[in-house]
């Protein structure tokens, strides 16, 4: 039956994948199918936003992890032989995609940042970052299905179209997984979500003492922003929680303006800010690699520069 398949953990991510999925399915003249386990009521919405079929999985018992669905999803894929299978690149999504790809004996492009269907060869050309973000790797896949995990917010949510029709297919319940979930602790929202902030002030190793974090916080407050940090600050110094660590293996931010204070600019960190509109850096080392990745840099001691900046920004934003 073939087709383009998508799998995401929630409604928002599913709508994003429906957007790219619809585009690919139309170009290939095939159908678009989405997995769903968050409740049948969403099926009609997915259909109206581009799905031709919704594959409905029965909800799991409380103590079962999402991975429990893997055997059912893989079996369905073996039966139906999709052309393309896109999975949302959440942590669970990445793990599930790797397991499913193994069962289907196919390749998987992790954290695919661009994909293009070649008009002539009809192959899917995929791009991803390698070497901590220093390189862009372009890959194609020679086995079926072509699988990729897609980072969040890479695509806009699919628009609703009137009059769309689709089918709902019920899939069987999976066998119980030997992994049991004992407890789920939702994240306490301490600060505003750093991934949504319009200004991010980032603290690097150049900050000497924990109490000096106040300086970064004050700058962020003046600009209506949030603070984040590089890996040593959260992992070694524990001055900020891991959720505020920006980089390849931490959070990716897309602010209007990023300001790095004493950030050296290791490639893994820079990868986490590559989608910022404007990147600024303050560092006393004029050879710090961050300056190559910055739109505007200030070479100077941050303890001298930041208080002056706070004054200037106060004047500029209140006038």
């Amino acid at each position, binding site marked *: 039956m073939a087709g383009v398949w998508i799998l995401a953990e929630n409604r928002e991510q599913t709508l994003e994948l429906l957007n790219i999925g619809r585009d690919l399915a139309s170009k290939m003249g095939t159908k678009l199918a989405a997995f769903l386990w968050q409740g049948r009521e969403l099926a009609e919405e997915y259909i109206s936003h581009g799905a031709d079929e919704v594959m409905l999985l029965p909800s799991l018992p409380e103590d079962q*992890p999402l991975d429990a669905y893997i055997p059912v999803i893989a079996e369905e894929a073996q039966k139906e032989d999709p052309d393309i299978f896109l999975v949302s690149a*959440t*942590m*669970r999504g990445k*793990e599930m995609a*790797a*397991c499913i*790809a*193994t*069962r289907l004996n196919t*390749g*998987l*492009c*992790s954290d695919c940042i661009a994909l293009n269907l070649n008009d002539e060869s009809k192959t899917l050309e995929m791009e*991803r*970052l*390698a*070497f901590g973000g*220093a*390189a*862009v*790797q*372009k*890959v*194609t*896949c*020679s086995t079926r299905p072509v699988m990729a995990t897609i980072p969040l917010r890479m695509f806009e949510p699919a628009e609703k179209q009137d009059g769309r029709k689709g089918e709902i297919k019920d899939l069987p319940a999976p066998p119980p997984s030997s*992994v*049991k*979930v*004992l407890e*789920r*602790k*939702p*994240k306490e929202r301490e600060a505003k979500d750093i991934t949504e902030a319009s200004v991010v002030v980032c603290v690097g190793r150049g900050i000497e003492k924990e109490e000096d974090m106040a300086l970064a916080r004050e700058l962020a407050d003046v600009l209506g922003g949030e603070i984040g940090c590089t*890996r040593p600050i959260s*992992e070694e110094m524990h001055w900020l929680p*891991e959720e505020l660590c920006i980089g*390849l*293996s931490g959070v990716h931010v897309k602010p*209007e*303006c990023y300001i790095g204070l004493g950030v050296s600019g290791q*490639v*893994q960190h820079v990868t986490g800010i590559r989608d910022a509109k*404007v*990147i600024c850096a303050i560092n006393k080392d*004029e050879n710090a690699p961050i*300056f*190559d990745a*910055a*739109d*505007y*840099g200030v*070479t*100077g001691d941050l303890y001298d*520069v930041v208080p*002056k900046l706070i004054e*200037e*920004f106060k004047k*500029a934003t209140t006038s």
Partner: protein
Amino acid sequence: MPNIVTCFKWVIDEAYIRAGSSGELDFRSVNYKISDYDRNAIEEAVCLREEYGGSVTGVTVGTPQATKGLKDALSRGPDKAYFIKDGSFESLEPSQTAGILADVIGSKIEYDLIVCGEGSSDLYAQQVGPRLAERLRIPCISFVQKLTIEGNQITAERRLEHGIEVTAAPMPVLVTVLPDINTPRIPGVKDTLMASKKEIINITKDDLTQIYEEHLQTTSMLAASMERNCVKFGADPADITGFVEALLKEGVIR
């Protein structure tokens, strides 16, 4: 007492990669290292042995060039290591690495727990852990920030986007660990000396039960370009004003 296996990869240190004039990657002055995330995996395996007893076996797949990596890994605490080497194991994709690891671990090593890093610092595809577990038909618990063993059961705290998931599973289990699960020790002179006395079991391509074909074709690998203005200011008052004005002009500060 658990038999623990930890997998590691000897990788190019990305800090030494330069971009050539036409965007190609210049590897001429690179150094190699144990993948950063795998240092956490090795450390966690060794810490678990210190707490619960048992043994730690390191396993790696690579070219003969990775020989240095074995000593490095063993100086971090494992009792012995398996080195699956072949000149062709140069740029394996995750499915191949996982297939080869599973081939050897499944047939030659007794294990209760396998500890992997969450990804490798070169490709960072984050697939080898879960793929290896699938191949061995054991459960995978990924992105773990805390691990405990009680009897035959592993309890693992996963830190995911929206919170913590505490999970448990009977061994054998594979876990992938987050970088903040521990701080890897820095091997001292004594550790390095001890490492050279430890056993390394060499496995060749001929010892594998099958050939692991690639699924992915890398059509290009070029330096990532970031088109940025790279305007620099000093720290004197005129420059500070200039910097602030530049941001106002960009319209990113309100």
